[in-house]
C-alpha cells in the first residue's frame, strides 16, 4: 500500500483505519470504513470533524466513544438558540468578584486611606484591577476548557445548527487557531489541540467558512448488517433472529413517508422493549402494540399501522393505500367516495365554528318543515 496516509504524530491514537474500527468496536460503537477513515484523518490532521445527518444515527455517540477510545476528557457544548459567547467561551465570575470585594473591604480601605482626593483613590483601585481580572475569577466554559485544560480533550459541539450565526463566528476563531484570547489576561493556545466533533441535524445551512475549516461527513442510516450489528452490540436481550427481522421492519418503516423516521437508537429501544415483553415471535399484534416506541407522531402512527402487514411480511398483499403515497394522492388512501359523502354531514363544524368554545350545548333543532314554511311564506307574501 503506497504511503499516502498522514504519518502518526507522537501519541497518535490510531495507526490505521482497521485499528479505528477495532478500537471503536471494543467500546460498542460499530463504525464503517468511511467513518473510521474520517476519524483517523481527524486525529492526524488536527481538523474539526463536522457530522451531519438525521437525528439518532450516532453522531453524538461518536464523540463520546472517541473520548473513551483515546482516553481523553469529553467536553460538551450543547448549542441552542440565543446562546451567547460567554456561555461557550468563558465569563468572569461576578459573584466571586463581589464576594472578594466585600471580604477585602478593610484592605481596600487601607489602600485608599491616605488618598488626597477621589481621583487619586480611583487611580489606586484601578491599579489593582489585575487582581480581580485574573485566573482566580475566570470561569472557563467548554471552549476555553478544551484549549487550556491540562488534560487532552475531545470537544463535542452538539447541534451546532441550533446556535445563532454569531456563535458560529466565535467558533471559527477557536477552531481554526485552537486559541482563545482574553483581553485582560492574554491568549491561550492549546498545548494539545482537542479533537473537535461538531454535529448538525441540518435545521439550517451552516456557513461556508465553518464547513471549510472542518472535515465533513454525512452520517446516514446504516445498512442492514451494520444496524443489526449495532443492535447486537447493545446487548438488548432480543434473540438474534428476531433482531434481524426487527431491523428489516424498521428499514421498511423508514421507506414510508413519515414525518420523523425511526432512528438507530429507537431501533435499539424497540429491541429492548420487545425483549422485556419476552417476545418470541414478531407478529403484527406485538409490533402494533409497541409501534409508539419508534413512531412519534400520530399521523405517522396511522400510516405505519396501515402498512404494518406489509412490513412484517413483504410478500403479503396489502391495499396499495398503505404504501407511501405522493402528496398529490394522499387523499386516495381510503375510499374517496365515503370520505366525500362524510363531508356533506350537517353540523360537522358546529363545535369548532370560528374557534367558538364551550358550544357543547347545541341549540334545539326546529321541527322539520318549519323553515320551509317560513321561506315559502316570505316568497308568498311578496308575490
Amino acid at each position, binding site marked *: 500500500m503506497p504511503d499516502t496516509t498522514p504519518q502518526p504524530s507522537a501519541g497518535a491514537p490510531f495507526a490505521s483505519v482497521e485499528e479505528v474500527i477495532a478500537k471503536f468496536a471494543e467500546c460498542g460503537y460499530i463504525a464503517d470504513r468511511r467513518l473510521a477513515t474520517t476519524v483517523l484523518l481527524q486525529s492526524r490532521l488536527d481538523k474539526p470533524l463536522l457530522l451531519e445527518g438525521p437525528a439518532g444515527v450516532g453522531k453524538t455517540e461518536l464523540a463520546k466513544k472517541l473520548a473513551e477510545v483515546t482516553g481523553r476528557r469529553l467536553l460538551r457544548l450543547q448549542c441552542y438558540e440565543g446562546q451567547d459567547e460567554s456561555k461557550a467561551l468563558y465569563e468572569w465570575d461576578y459573584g466571586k468578584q463581589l464576594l472578594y470585594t466585600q471580604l477585602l473591604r478593610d484592605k481596600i480601605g487601607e489602600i485608599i486611606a491616605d488618598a488626597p482626593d477621589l481621583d487619586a483613590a480611583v487611580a489606586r483601585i484601578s491599579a489593582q484591577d489585575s487582581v480581580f481580572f485574573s485566573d482566580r475569577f475566570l470561569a472557563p466554559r467548554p471552549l476555553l476548557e478544551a484549549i487550556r485544560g491540562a488534560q487532552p480533550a475531545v470537544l463535542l459541539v452538539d447541534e451546532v445548527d441550533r446556535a445563532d450565526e454569531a456563535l458560529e463566528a466565535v467558533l471559527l476563531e477557536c477552531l481554526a487557531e485552537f486559541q482563545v484570547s482574553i483581553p485582560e489576561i492574554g491568549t491561550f493556545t492549546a498545548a494539545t489541540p482537542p479533537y473537535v466533533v461538531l454535529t448538525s441535524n441540518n435545521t439550517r445551512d451552516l456557513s461556508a467558512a465553518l464547513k471549510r475549516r472542518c472535515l465533513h461527513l454525512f452520517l446516514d442510516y446504516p445498512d442492514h448488517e451494520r444496524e443489526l450489528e449495532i443492535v447486537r452490540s447493545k446487548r438488548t436481550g432480543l434473540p438474534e433472529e428476531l433482531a434481524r427481522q426487527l431491523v428489516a421492519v424498521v428499514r421498511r418503516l423508514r421507506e414510508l413517508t413519515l*414525518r420523523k423516521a425511526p432512528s438507530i437508537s429507537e431501533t435499539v429501544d424497540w429491541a429492548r422493549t420487545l425483549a422485556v415483553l419476552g417476545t418470541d415471535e414478531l407478529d403484527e399484534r406485538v409490533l402494533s402494540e409497541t409501534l409508539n416506541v419508534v413512531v412519534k407522531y400520530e*399521523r405517522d402512527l396511522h400510516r405505519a399501522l396501515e402498512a404494518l402487514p406489509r412490513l412484517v411480511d413483504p410478500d403479503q398483499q396489502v391495499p396499495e393505500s398503505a404504501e407511501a403515497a405522493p*402528496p*398529490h*394522492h*394522499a*387523499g*386516495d388512501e381510503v375510499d*374517496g*367516495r365515503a*370520505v*366525500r*359523502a362524510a*363531508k*356533506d*354531514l*350537517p*353540523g*360537522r*363544524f*358546529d363545535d*369548532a*365554528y*370560528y*374557534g*367558538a*368554545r*364551550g*358550544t*357543547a*350545548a*347545541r*341549540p334545539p*333543532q*326546529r321541527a*322539520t*318543515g*318549519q*323553515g*320551509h314554511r*317560513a*321561506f*315559502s311564506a*316570505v*316568497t308568498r*307574501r*311578496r*308575490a
Partner: protein
Amino acid sequence: MQVDELLKPFPIKEFHPFPRALLGPGSHELIGPEAKKLGFQRTLVMTSGLRGTDIVHKIVESMKYHGLEVVLYDKVESNPKDYNVMDAVQLYQEHSCDSFVSIGGGSSHDACKGARISIAHDGRNINEFEGFNQSENPNNPPHIAVSTTAGTGSETSWAYVITDTTTDPDNPHKYVAFDDASLTTLAIDDPVLYYDCPTDFTAQCGFDVLAHGAEPYVSRLNFEPSMGNALHAIKLTAQHLRQAVWNGQDLKGREGMMYAQYIAAQAFNSGGLGIIHSISHAVSAFYDTHHGLNNAIALPRVWAFNMPVAYQRFADIAEAMGVDTHGMTTVQAADAALGAAIRLLRDVGIPERFVDIRPDSYSKNRLGQGPTKFYERAKEIKGDAADIDRITNHVLGDACTPGNAKECTFDTVRPVVEHCMTGDLDDLLS
C-alpha cells in the same frame, strides 16, 4: 351546565388578527422594497396569469429590479384546485424558494395560502386541512398578497377556499379552511391594479364584498367589534359599485371598492359567514362558476330566508345602502334592504338565476383566460331536483353554515337553493 344553556350558541368569540396592509394608489410599487425588508431572496410568485393585462409582468420585473430572484407559477385556476396548490408546493421545493407573492383575486391568494400551509407540514396534501385551525406548524413561509380585484378580501383574511378534486372526482368538494397560520404577512391593495378588471367581473366581485359585509352583520356569532366594519363596507359598496362597474378608470369608484373589500374581510374574519357562501361554494364545486357571481345570485334569496330572525339588522343594512327608512316600520325597512340589493344587482348587470348562466361564461380566469383543466367539460346548470339535493347537502356540510343567521336543515335550505336555481327575483319583492 346552566351557564352553557344561557350562553349558547357561541359564547366565547375569537378575534382574529389581520396582517399589515398597504392601501391606496401606487402601493403596488412598494412590493420589491417591502419584500427585501421582509428578507425575501427567492420568491415563488403565484398567479392565474392575468393574461391580457401586463400586471404580472410589471410586478415581476419590478421585483427583479430590486434584486429578488423570482420563480413564477401562473397556472392557478379559478376556484383553485388542490392540484394547483400541490404543483406550487413542488415548484417551491424544487427551486428552494423562501417566500411567496400572490397576484390576483381570491384564487391566487387562496392557492398560495394553501401552499404555505402544506410546505410547513412537509408537503402534506392540502385537503387534510379543511375546517378551523387544523394546521400544527405555524412557521410557514412569508407571503405578500397583491389584489387585482375588489372582492375577495383573501389577502386580509384567515380563510382560504380550495376545491378537492381527488377524494371523489365525480363529486368535487369545495371547502373553506380557516387558519390563523394562513394569514398573509403583508396585504397590498392598489386600486390602480383594478382598472383592468372587466365590467362583469367587477360587478360580481362587488357582490362578494356585499356578502362579506352582510353575513357577519346578521351572523349568529353576533360579534359586536365587527359590526362597524360590516355596515360601513355595505355602505361603501352601495355608494361605489355602480361607478366602479360602469366607469372602470374612475379612481374614486375603484378606491371606494378597495376600502369596502378590505374592511368587509375584516368584518367576516371574526364575525363569521353564512349560507350565501355555502351555496356559492357548492355551486362552484360542481360547475366552476365564479364565486362572486354565485354570491350575487344567492344573496337576495338568503337575505329573504334570514330576514325573519333579524329584521332590525336588515333595517340597518337598508339604511347603509342609502334607503331613507324614515317613517318605516322595522319590517318595512328590512324589506327595503332586499329591494336595494336587487336593484343594485340589476343595475350592474348580473344574471338573476343559476340556470341563466351559460357554460361558456363559467369561470375561465376571466382576466386571463387561464386554464380550467378540471372543468373543461362542465355541464350546463339544469337546476333539476337531483342537482338541488346535491347542492343542499354540500351547503349543510360547509364550514360557513353554522354561522348563518337562521339555523339550517335540509328541509329549510332546499327551497332556498331551488329558488336560486330557477326562482324569479320579483317573487321576493313586495
